[in-house]
């Protein structure tokens, strides 16, 4: 067997390959994105980007019912979007094995909230597996598919950022061919009208009972007896690694991998043999609450934080009372280095215009969320994918009810618009909203690393695909005032907004279009410089927050290494001090 060094995401993709998956779908979202990107490299698996997670899961459900082994992956908040089909899939069950990966983000490295998706398993009544490193991530895809087919259920496969984006040594094997299972029409199983669903509800209960028995014997749920029986620790996922890091074999550990349904007898046996039991888990007291409900006395969240990512240090301090005092201290003032809109980012000029509008701006999830930070600071709200347009509609209606005449502008990206913005826009049209909706179209899913979507004209393998026309969609759902402008042309953006302000017959849509500056061959070309003679140090150009425009002492200059030549700054300078300095 060959040993390779894989991230958890790459290992899951490898698992999909080795265990005979033939259908895969996803919508990109950190930290889950690379699962499908790596699956797409295998020609044996049909793979596709879906416009959103609900669609991805529904497509995978169809493939599974047809008899194929299928996998669908998403970030934690993506499972909220897919929750609707998920809960009923628990009733219908599957045909070919169906694995649903939820990649959670404790610590919110790149997410709008922190949620513990282990809670979805008992809520949706489906079994759940949690890998604790890359090797397990690969192996457990096979176990999940087996469980899915054996018990006729979708399986939740829950990772966290530190599993998804950490690398470990993985033994890989050959692909096992899983033949497509025969499909037989069976509406009582697959068509959930109330009469059929009530019967399936009982089957669901029986299935969970059987799964609990399986969990007792599942070899990945295991006790590692330590040197002492004084302390026992129950843990799962990445927390298992931190526990072993801190304690090695000093204490006894119950490592849980199938964390729904839980193996009650195994837990009871472990608890009865050790003197004191701790539950070490990241985020919610998920295991702790269930184990307490079994009637056992354990300690958990009274010692281990329920907010943010865990680490060996936190566990060491909480359970051993050993506080780490680093030899070297960080300086008191280290300027932060947060992410910024890239040089040449087409969104920058749009936010510059919006800042001057004195409007309420509801935004969405994507690179353009950074427009909330200084110096652009033009955003009032960011909630979830697709919410900008509907929230703007709500703002506008509430203002109108109260006799207030305020301008409401919504901002949404192209990928996000196709994900879940269309239905929001329909609502605005249908209910006669007077909002201005700006679709900042950089023609890619940029923030997660340039994934294609139904509007780009390419599929996941970068093969040509039919491209959805965003402007045609807007018109088709009834938006009459639709305009398309160049994001780099500040006057055109401004004029389009002004024109939209005059239009009172319903929502307006302005599509500001320019390819992401980082897209190979599509970004702008050229180089600009600030004439020291003409510059009056008014600092207007600094309000753009472009990383290429820098200050040293009294001098403002453009760093030629960063400038890509978008020329937005040229339009902002009142003294014509910014000049072209080259073509590359």
């Amino acid at each position, binding site marked *: 067997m060959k040993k390779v060094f894989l991230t958890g995401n790459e290992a899951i993709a490898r698992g999909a390959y080795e265990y005979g998956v033939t259908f895969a779908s996803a919508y990109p979202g950190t930290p889950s994105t690379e699962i499908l990107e790596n699956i797409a490299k295998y020609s044996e698996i049909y793979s596709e980007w879906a416009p959103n997670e609900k669609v991805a899961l529904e497509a995978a459900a169809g493939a599974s019912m047809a008899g194929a082994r299928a996998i669908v992956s998403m970030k934690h908040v993506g499972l909220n979007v897919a929750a609707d089909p998920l809960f009923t899939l628990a009733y219908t069950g599957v045909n070919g094995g169906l694995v649903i990966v939820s990649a959670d983000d404790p610590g919110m490295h790149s997410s709008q909230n922190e949620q513990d998706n282990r809670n979805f398993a008992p809520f949706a009544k489906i079994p759940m597996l949690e890998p604790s490193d890359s090797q397990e991530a690969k192996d457990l895809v096979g176990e999940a598919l087996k469980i899915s087919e054996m018990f006729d259920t979708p399986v939740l496969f829950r990772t966290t950022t530190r599993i998804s984006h950490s*690398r*470990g040594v993985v033994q890989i094997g050959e692909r096992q061919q899983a033949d497509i299972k025969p499909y037989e029409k069976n509406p009582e199983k697959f068509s959930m009208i109330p009469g059929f669903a009530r019967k399936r509800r009982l089957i669901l209960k029986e299935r969970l009972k059987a799964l609990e028995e399986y969990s007792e014997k599942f070899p990945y749920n295991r006790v590692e007896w330590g040197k002492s029986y004084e302390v026992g620790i129950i843990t799962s996922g990445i927390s298992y690694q931190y526990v072993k*890091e801190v304690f090695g074999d000093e204490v006894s550990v119950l490592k849980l991998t199938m964390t729904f349904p839980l193996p009650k007898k195994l837990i009871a046996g472990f608890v009865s043999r050790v003197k004191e039991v701790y539950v070490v888990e990241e985020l919610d007291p998920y295991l702790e609450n269930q184990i307490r409900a079994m009637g056992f006395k354990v300690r958990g969240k009274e010692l281990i934080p329920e907010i943010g990512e865990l680490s*060996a240090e936190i566990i060491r301090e909480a359970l051993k009372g050993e506080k780490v005092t680093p030899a070297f201290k960080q300086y008191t003032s280290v*300027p932060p280095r947060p992410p910024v809109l890239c040089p040449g980012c087409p969104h920058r000029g749009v936010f510059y215009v919006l800042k001057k509008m004195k409007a309420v701006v509801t935004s969405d999830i994507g690179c353009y969320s950074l427009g909330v930070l200084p110096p652009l600071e033009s955003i009032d709200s960011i909630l979830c994918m697709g919410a900008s347009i509907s929230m703007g509609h709500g703002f506008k209606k509430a203002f109108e009810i109260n006799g207030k005449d305020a301008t409401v502008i919504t901002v949404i990206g192209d990928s996000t618009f196709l994900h879940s913005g269309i239905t929001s826009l329909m609502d605005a049209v249908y209910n006669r909203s007077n909002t201005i909706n700006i679709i900042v179209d950089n023609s890619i899913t940029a923030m997660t690393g340039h994934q294609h979507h139904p509007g780009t004209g390419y599929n996941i393998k970068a093969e040509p695909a039919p491209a959805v026309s965003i402007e045609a969609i807007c018109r088709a759902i009834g938006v009459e005032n639709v305009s398309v402008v160049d994001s780099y042309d500040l006057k055109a953006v401004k004029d389009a907004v002004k024109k939209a302000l005059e239009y009172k017959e319903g929502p307006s849509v302005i599509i500001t279009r320019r390819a992401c500056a980082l897209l190979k061959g599509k970004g702008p070309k050229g180089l600009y410089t600030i004439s020291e003679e003409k510059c009056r140090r008014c600092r207007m150009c600094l309000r753009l927050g472009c*990383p290429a425009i820098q200050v040293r002492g009294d001098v403002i200059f453009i760093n030629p290494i960063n400038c890509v030549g978008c020329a937005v700054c040229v339009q902002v300078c009142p003294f014509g001090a910014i000049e072209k300095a080259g073509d590359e």
Partner: protein
Amino acid sequence: MMTVKSIFISGVGGQGNILAGKVITTALVNQGYDVKMSEVHGMAQRGGSVITQIRYGERVYSPLIEKGGADVLLAFEKLEAVRYIEYLSPEGTLIVNDLELPPASVLTGKAEYPPDIIERLKSEVKNTIVVDAVNIARECGEVRAQNMVLVGVLARVMDWSKQSFMEVIKEVVPVRFAQINIDAFNRGWELHG
């Protein structure tokens, strides 16, 4: 049993830190170690602070390095050295690229880039190696090869097999840049014997 060794790499998005991590870990995996590595992804793709943590030994559990636990802090930029200096162990070695990349708050004049970083680091950390990786890489023919200069220094400090790195660089780096990167690695290797 060999104790686990930890390498903490800090830098700025776009400097080639992830590739450096890939070269180091591939070499370590090829030498038969258990290796774990943790990278930061997502919003910090461009211009943000980027860290890579590598741990290797006979059996590695946590992919994360604890504060005061890094045998080496390899900083691709000065400010990113002080930002993560807490992670360096008291006996650890600091390898720092003598390069200043001001973050957005400094560029717009809202914050000050701390002066005399190198002097302060040298006075605090006994084992400090300052590398002018940008100029060395430029001499090798490509400023972007600064990451390989720094990997070369690290490999010498850790006493790793030079030959294994030659093979890995050829394997990981695109063919037309392989020689430049090998040169850059060698220049780093020779810097501190």
